[in-house]
């Protein structure tokens, strides 16, 4: 092959690579549009006039009718949604504190090298990831523990996830042993090493855990629908299910005066979605840089 041919070939490759790059960029932009459009639709619909929204056809890139805050006013005066918020916040705050505490405790012990029962306990925990008793025995247990109709039924049974414990353990194990050794020479107990050395050094993995557990609690609805009968205990997602899936207009418009109901019913759905989704979507980009590590560890070791 002559030199000219080689150069020619190289130009050709780089040309076809450029074409590929162009298509790739266009494809990824389309993917972003497809991902974001439903969210844009929700936000625009939530600022729309109910009647205009009902008769609207096609894409919604701007609020239908005159932009209005009526739907949000209705949402924030709806006692069901406010109670749902309060219940979810209670479960979130109490639940996540217990989850972080218990998971880190287990992860700390199981990441120590000189601990005789490490492997048996690890097996005891990991086995539950691959085999479970099933939803009926689980439900019967909660019933026997008298947790039905109690918000603690959404907290206590979910205090440690084996998957998260493994992520945290792997992260703890990466902390140099020398720190533990020197603390021990100074007479520090395991409690002290856990609280004053390991936990302060693990802010990144704790952030990931906060997010994983937090998303689970915030978005959870199934067990609440099984364990809770008393409507005043319903978490936000369960209220949301009634409004979105069961199309229960009475729970949607409670707290709104009669004449307004028909006008805003349609846009209330969307305002509720906004109110229930924005908190979590606004937190996660700040934690994004920690994801890769957490997901990687979890998938490989899990």
């Amino acid at each position: 092959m002559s030199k000219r041919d080689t150069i020619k070939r190289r130009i050709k490759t780089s040309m076809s690579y450029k074409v590929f790059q162009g298509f790739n960029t266009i494809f990824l932009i389309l993917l972003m549009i497809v991902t974001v459009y439903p969210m844009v639709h929700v936000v625009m619909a939530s600022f729309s006039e109910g009647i205009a929204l009902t008769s609207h056809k096609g894409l919604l890139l701007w609020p239908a009718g005159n932009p209005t805050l009526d739907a949000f006013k209705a949402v924030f005066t709806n006692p069901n949604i406010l109670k749902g918020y309060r219940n979810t916040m209670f479960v979130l705050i109490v639940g996540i504190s217990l989850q972080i505490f218990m998971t880190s405790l287990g992860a700390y012990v199981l990441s120590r090298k000189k601990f005789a029962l490490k492997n048996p306990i690890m097996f005891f925990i990991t086995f539950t990831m691959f085999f479970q008793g099933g939803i009926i025995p689980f439900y019967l247990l909660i019933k026997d523990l008298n947790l039905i109709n109690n918000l603690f039924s959404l907290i206590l049974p979910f205090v440690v996830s084996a998957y998260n414990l493994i992520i945290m353990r792997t992260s703890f194990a990466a902390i140099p042993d020398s720190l533990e050794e020197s603390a021990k020479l100074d007479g520090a107990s395991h409690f002290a090493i856990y609280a004053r050395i390991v936990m302060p050094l693990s802010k990144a993995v704790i952030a990931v855990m906060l997010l994983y557990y937090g998303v689970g609690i915030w978005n959870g609805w199934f067990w609440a629908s099984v364990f809770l009968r008393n409507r005043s205990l319903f978490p936000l997602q369960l209220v949301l299910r009634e409004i979105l899936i069961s199309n229960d207009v009475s729970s949607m418009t409670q707290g709104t005066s009669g004449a307004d109901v028909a006008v805003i019913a349609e846009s209330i759905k969307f305002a509720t979605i906004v109110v229930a989704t924005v908190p979590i979507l606004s937190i996660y980009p700040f934690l994004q840089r920690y994801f890769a590590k957490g997901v990687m560890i979890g998938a490989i070791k899990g």
Partner: protein
Amino acid sequence: MNVSANKKGTTLIQKVKEEWKRNKELYIMILPVVIYFFIFMYIPMYGAAIAFKQFSPAKGILGSDWVGFTHFFRFFDGIYFVRVLKNTLVISVYSLIFGFPAPIILALLLNEVRVKWFKNLVQTVTYLPHFISLVVIIGLLKEFTISTGLVNDVFAFFGMDRFPLLQKPEAFRPLYIISEIWQTVGWNSIIYLAALSGIDEQLYEAARMDGANRWKQTLHITLPSIASTIIILFILRMGSLFTVGFEKIILMYNPSTYEVSDVISSYVYRSGLLDMNYSYSTAVGLFNSVMNFILLVVANKLSKRISKTSLW
């Protein structure tokens, strides 16, 4: 003989004592975690024994009468067996065929993006749906597919009839799979991106020296480098071939689509928690768990033999 056995015995006790003395705090710290798993994971496993009993709440798990495999046979002989098994497998296989490669492709495409901010933007945007609750996603799916919804606006534009798609059996599976890919493709690509970022840049340089173009580099360097990640995730996926989560199904389905949408787990939920056939539905669930467990063990063994990659 006796003496040595005795001696061995004392050293074991001594060893236990030493271990306790050295690690007392660790045992105290792990105790609540062990208790949690015992109560909320192992007691239900024991509770699954009601699959072999005629459970009555008054008699409790221990006091209920044994009936052997009656409930299992009732399930195998019933009309639901073939239906839910088939639906589970079909949905699972579809999501394997379409859902499994999607994040790999996305990761490979992102890997070719040279403009850093654009890559970050695509990642941030495609992760978003992972954080949206299923209730909201299915609620939106419903809004978009009702006869006055966006999807039907598009159909009407092309002269087709308007129809609420979630009432249509033949639309159920596509909607299930498409919404699943929409929600998970970005998030699931993270792990492949992490694997891709670990590839040694020198490998590419060497390949370029040998005249390999981008396609060949992808084929001979990039793909083999993430093969072990792909295989592990594939094993996990195979191990859950008979699992289709009930949460999404029961939000999405309705009696007009049961024939294609009812899967094992949703059937267990309905017959157990709604109709309160506790023993029968536990038997169905147990059958499913055991099948999954066997499948996972087999998939893991196969992978160990073929590619030396395994979960344990």
